[in-house]
């Protein structure tokens, strides 16, 4: 886990990245396309 300004950035199982912006209460979860099985 690392803290970038108001953002807490976490790597999950080496696959996902969670950016939790405590200042604005916004959480972004990044999922690599390799983990997706359907077209979108």
């Amino acid at each position, binding site marked *: 886990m690392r803290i970038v300004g108001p953002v807490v950035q976490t790597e999950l*199982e080496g696959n996902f990245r969670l950016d939790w912006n405590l200042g604005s209460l916004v959480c972004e979860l990044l999922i690599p*396309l390799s*983990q997706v*099985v359907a077209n*979108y």
Partner: protein
Amino acid sequence: MQLTRADTVKDFQAALEGRIRAISNAHSLLAQSRWEGAEVQSLIREELAPYQVTGTSRVDISGPSLVLKPTSAHSIAMVLHETTTNAVKYGALSVPSGRIRIELSRGDAGMVICWSETGGPPVRRPVIKDSECE
């Protein structure tokens, strides 16, 4: 690894039950798809279902359909559970006026789930015990 930071046995039990329920929901969705994958929107709806009130719209989900591989579905289900729990305890779902907007989109490096809360109490710096610092 620490399972939970619950202060009481009752809190520990509630946290454990919530996590088991989240895994169970993901299992059910995967079973329905013959273990091919689970749709993120369905995972979100299952997790937030206990906090939806008929006739009100506290949660808005938008974006394209996104189906995850089974192992990823379990991981994302746990993330959604923890995020929901945080919203219920301290965020938008802790007050009647709070709202949550969840947007799915495609980013440069993959799919993005953007969870934003409005109308909740102001953010306060958490009190962390010395024993919880690593």
